[in-house]
């Protein structure tokens, strides 16, 4: 099988996952989820390895990986900021939050800051609609946002990182 030379990941990590699911049909999505948890994204060589071991064509694996918004083909920042653009958040002004974040970080939906600290992703509902507008940064959810509140949360994280 053709392996891509543009990225060199430690494939023994994904091999363990592949062993765990060997013989379980229909587990391609679960495998991709675990692989992404390991590498932070889905590097091309990992996709090829998954294709090879699961008996799928690389096109099929790639097709699944690009169908679902959860999967990423590029590395992401240390802090993943998911800004809700669901109905309730939209009605309560999530666009203004998006604009403020864009101005602060210089990136929009799908972007990652140059220092690799933040990635921004717009999502369709975080299920905290009654506290809208809402965003999630890694595991933490923040509700009742205003542009200022969103910025102070981001600045706090950045200050913490600068201090080390």
């Amino acid at each position: 099988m053709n392996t891509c030379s543009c990225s060199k990941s430690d494939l023994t990590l994904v091999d363990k996952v592949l062993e765990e699911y060997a013989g379980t049909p229909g587990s391609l999505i679960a495998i991709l989820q675990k692989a992404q948890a390991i590498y932070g994204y889905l590097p091309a060589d990992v996709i090829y390895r998954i294709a090879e071991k699961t008996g799928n064509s690389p096109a099929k694996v790639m097709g699944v990986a690009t169908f679902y918004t959860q999967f990423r083909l590029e590395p992401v920042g240390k802090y993943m900021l998911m800004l809700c653009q669901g109905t309730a958040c939209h009605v309560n002004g999530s666009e203004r939050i998006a604009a403020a974040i864009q101005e602060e970080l210089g990136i929009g939906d799908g972007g990652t800051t140059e220092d690799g600290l933040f990635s921004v992703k717009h999502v369709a509902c975080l299920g905290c609609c009654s506290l809208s507008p809402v965003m999630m940064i890694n595991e933490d959810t923040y509700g009742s946002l205003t542009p200022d509140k969103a910025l102070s949360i981001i600045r706090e994280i950045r200050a913490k990182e600068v201090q080390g």
Partner: protein
Amino acid sequence: MRVIVGEGSCGLAAGAGKVYEALQTKLEGIESASLGITGCVGMCWLEPIVDLYNGKMLAKRLVHVAPEDADDIAAAVQSGDLSLVDRITIRKEDEDFLRKQTRIALRHCGVIDPADINDYMADDGYQALEKVLGTMTPEEVIEEIKVSGLAGRGGAGFPTWFKWKAARNAAGGPKYLICNADEGDPGAFMDRAVIESDPHSLIEGMMIAAYAIGAAEAIVYVRAEYPLAIVRLENAIKQAREAGKLGKNILGSDFSCDMRIKAGAGAFVCGEETALIESLEGNRGMPRLKPPFPANSGYWHKPSNINNVETFANVAWIILNGGDKFAAMGTEDSKGTKVFALTGKIKRGGLVEIPMGKTLREVIFDIGGGIRDDKEFKAVQMGGPSGGCIPASLLDTPIDYKKLSATGAIMGSGGMVVMDENTCMVGMAKFFLDFTAKESCGKCVHCRIGTKRMQEILTRITEGEGREGDIELLEELCAAVKDGALCGLGQTAPNPVLTTLRYFRDEYEAHINEKKCPAGSCAALLTYSIDPSKCVGCTMCARKCPAGAIAGTVRNPHSIDPEKCIRCGQCLAACRFGAVSVG
């Protein structure tokens, strides 16, 4: 005294985790106190919430609790003088929010500890499963559900007993039972709340259904964005298996069924049952043509039954209390209760469970307290991207599958997003078409291309580029997509456009003909101006303006050059004298 912190996702987002930590420190050493957690009681606008219990009796409910309140709470618990926390006690009118509800699906939410099976057992938990396995045949179970009139709470409202019977009678095996916990409607969160707050009622409902149809395996497909729900459900499945409530020979009977979770990966269309099955099989979530229906050919092309979380959450209650008691509530057409997620420009946003047949007005005004900042009610959006906007003139519509469909909206999964005078209805239609165009899986042409073209037209209308004939073109596209799409996503995608055209056509016309947005929301159609009589010349707005569109000198009135203005609204936000206006 038991001190219970509400730790649903919304409570945690509001800071319940920090409150819990503070209480842990302050309550240490107080012998009469114990600290615990519960799920989401549905009064989200009051989070973080802390309940003080004497045994099983709720003595006091504290709201908007901050970590700094832990001292007072500890003092109150230690001395027994609860007046020490009067300051943060829930107000009487807010209590009415719960008092006016009838809770079946949400019966344990915010009451029991979701992490402890014993708490569930102490509240009649797993007794319905015991009754079913000990005394009822599968046919009798299906008959009881038929009597209850329970219909699917995931959107379509199809009679639950019918689907169970079809799966039971289907030839071949093994059979599968699937729970749809994909909760795709942005603005709905009752399924998340049930799983986070009362995971065992889902498990119990599913085991009863599995027995009724003869399923050997049960799978819960949970939305990717719900990490806490997955953790709580995993824990509950483990406890239930250890306690013999699922797995081999459940409760000592010869019925066996195990359960597992499948985490979704983020695709709205996977809420559609056949797309969900494709996704379970590890494929792109593209819908299959129906028939055959999943009851005959579902997961791995075996007989499968799919129900929504809320549907299952009603099952144990119906078995214990009788289908007739459930059917006694509601209307001719719609039985029992329904949970709604009340959000948007509403005063009291949260979860509301009421008997069918109450009016929209009762839910939004009586229970929800009406519109925030006492603005004018404009519309309520129901059914998400498949639904529509219901105007003020129809507020007295009873909540019932048929009556809601007659408005052009649908019951849907129960999202109710309330909008006020400042929400642009063309903008709302565009918002939903942005959504469906992005989420269309691309399998059929009508949905893939049709939603895109509608989105483009709506975009140009909101940007002041609308043309004569656009409304007619939209109507034509709506009809074509409705007829031609393969699955429910495409077939219902025109609904947000059709309902806004039906009730708010004048707003479309104002955008197209006068290049005006009556709600003052579409940025491209706004003009900002400064009232010279109010402007004191503080220069604040000029300094904030990123486009250099504001001219003026210190202590003299400023003015905005409309040619340069990019309509960002920063001047409006910056002015402390109310001199900037927008129209």
